């Protein structure tokens, strides 16, 4: 070890307690950052997966323009054969065709305007949680019977239950009047108000018959194995589609979700920023003190022939060593803590009950990754170095004689 490095290292431990306190602040903030960032991103993953799994899927094949203007005539022709072809090409069962129509649902007492989805019952459960969220009755069978499942809030509004009949009125694809009487076979509770109040599902065959769809539908919903796989799957699907169809990813389908995550991320990172700045001030305080109390000594080494810039580098080296200890310890403790929770899960009182209502897992398992482990500590390390720039620069103004007069 060269002498300047040795000097820097030993200087750190002249006031061991003060150094450890500063390192402690770094370790604490780094641990917190590693854990919180891992937890936060795991929550986002969970949020995205669960939101997309409720209904919209990771991506949808639609007619161009349908996403922004849901008109009945903007159809995907031969929607079931297309879904079947994609299932074969991608070797995946998590692909399902749907049709959609706006209609009036009437019970004996009340009427409400709702969105009626025609679904493939045998595949819908692979792309949506709704089949698993039936609280009363059962989900649609495989037949094309005139059955329907509706949201719990809609059932309460219409004052109907399983076994009751609903009259559906709407417009067919050709603009003609569409009407049908359907039997409620199940009531679901997704926990999402908009879905529970406004949505009903019926078999796609029956839907196409009622709304004169002639084999057409409005979307093919695709759920990729994981969110990370979605872009690749999207590219593969896009490559096979004819010009009159497009594939939209989840960001396009659920812009609100992305915005909510970005808003949450902004506020979280603002808090992390404050934490990092507090640590930086702690380092600034330590290094400024350290420089001030060694003014005499700095005067001596300048007299011996050390340039002021080199003295500044010595202070930066001391800070680098201190920052590295904080970085390594903080990242290690943070990663261990996150790893423990990735195995055992994290839950807080009431979380499991609340999550169960939304068909979400009751425990969160934050995942350790190299990026999430290093990002926070690296930012703290960077700010630590920045905090030492001012004390280091002060040395440039030092005058050897005046410095040596300092006690």
């Amino acid at each position, binding site marked *: 070890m060269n002498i300047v490095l040795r000097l820097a290292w030993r200087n750190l431990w002249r006031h061991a307690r003060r150094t450890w306190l500063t390192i402690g602040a770094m370790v604490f903030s780094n641990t917190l950052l590693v854990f919180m960032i891992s937890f936060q991103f795991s929550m986002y993953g969970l949020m995205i997966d669960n939101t997309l799994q409720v209904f919209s899927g990771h991506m949808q094949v639609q007619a161009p323009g349908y996403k922004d203007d849901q008109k009945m005539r903007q159809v995907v022709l031969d929607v079931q054969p297309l879904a079947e072809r994609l299932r074969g090409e991608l070797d995946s069962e998590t692909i399902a065709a749907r049709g959609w129509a706006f209609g009036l649902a009437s019970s004996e007492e009340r009427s409400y305007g709702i969105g009626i989805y025609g679904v493939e019952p045998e595949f819908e459960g692979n792309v949506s949680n709704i089949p698993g969220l039936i609280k009363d009755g059962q989900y649609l069978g495989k037949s094309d019977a005139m059955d329907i499942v509706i949201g719990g809030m809609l059932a309460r509004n219409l004052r109907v239950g399983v076994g009751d009949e609903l009259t559906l009125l709407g417009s067919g694809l050709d603009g003609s009047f569409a009407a049908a009487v359907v039997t409620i076979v199940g009531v679901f509770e997704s926990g999402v108000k908009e879905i529970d109040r406004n949505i009903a599902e019926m078999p796609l065959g029956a839907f196409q018959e009622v709304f004169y769809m002639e084999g057409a539908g409005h979307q093919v919903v695709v759920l990729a194995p994981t969110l990370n796989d979605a872009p690749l799957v999207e590219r593969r699907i896009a490559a096979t589609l004819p010009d009159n169809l497009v594939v939209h990813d989840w960001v396009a389908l659920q812009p609100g979700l992305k915005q909510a995550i970005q808003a949450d991320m902004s506020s979280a990172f603002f808090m992390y920023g404050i934490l990092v700045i507090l640590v930086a001030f702690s380092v600034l305080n330590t290094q400024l003190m350290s420089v001030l109390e060694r003014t005499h000594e700095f005067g001596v080494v300048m007299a011996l022939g050390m340039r002021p810039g*080199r003295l500044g580098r010595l202070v930066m080296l001391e800070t680098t060593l201190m920052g590295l200890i904080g970085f390594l310890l903080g990242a290690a403790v943070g990663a261990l803590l996150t790893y423990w929770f990735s195995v055992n899960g994290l839950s807080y009182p009431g979380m499991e009950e609340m999550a169960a209502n939304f068909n979400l897992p009751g425990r969160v398992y934050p995942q350790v990754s190299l990026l999430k482990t290093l990002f926070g500590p690296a930012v703290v390390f960077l700010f630590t170095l920045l905090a030492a720039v001012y004390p280091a620069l002060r040395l440039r103004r030092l005058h050897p004689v005046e410095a040596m007069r300092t006690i």
Partner: protein
Amino acid sequence: MTAVRCVDICKTYRQGDQDIKALDHLSIDIEKGDFVCLMSPSGGGKTTLLNAIGGLDIPDSGEVWVAEQRIDQMSKGQLADLRLANVGFVFQAYNLIPVLTAQENVEFVMQVQGVPAKERRSKSLAILEEVGLRDLEDRRPAEMSGGQQQRVAVARAIVSRPELVLADEPTANLDSRTSDELMELFTELNKNHSTTFVIATHDQRVQRYAKRLVRMRDGRIVDDIEQDAA
């Protein structure tokens, strides 16, 4: 050959409302290999002159030449380089770096000079041997006596064989026996290596070792005599 040349230098300090002339139109030439003792009562200007010669302080006017270079117009960095290459300092309070051992303190200047590690080690051990501290190489300053620390400081000052050694009250904190030993060491280095010594002191015992005695008062040279050293 002239090692140091000061031409009509002035330096004034402000102390409260008063201007104090530390150097008042002072001129002096010091030849290479000389052994000069600057004597004055406190506040006579000897430390200011020493600082001006070492480039630690810049005079308000006049010229200072060291190793054939005019230094009073140099930048801080250039002055640091000049001191590193040409000047060794010995201070009254030793001023060793407390976290480094005796050997590391001696090596420090060479490290700054960029001397390779192996050479640094051998030179530092040799110089510690020369000043009689070979067995104390691993001790830190706090573990050594004042005399031992001053020897380390001397070793640090001369390890790079500078042409000029400036010593400010080097014996002030030493007992008479250690003072004599230190001065004998200086004399030996002066004789063997032709190192120029300029020592600021008001210790009468130090005078005996000087080849040249320069007495100062109020920032001026009042007496400059050559003598036979002890």
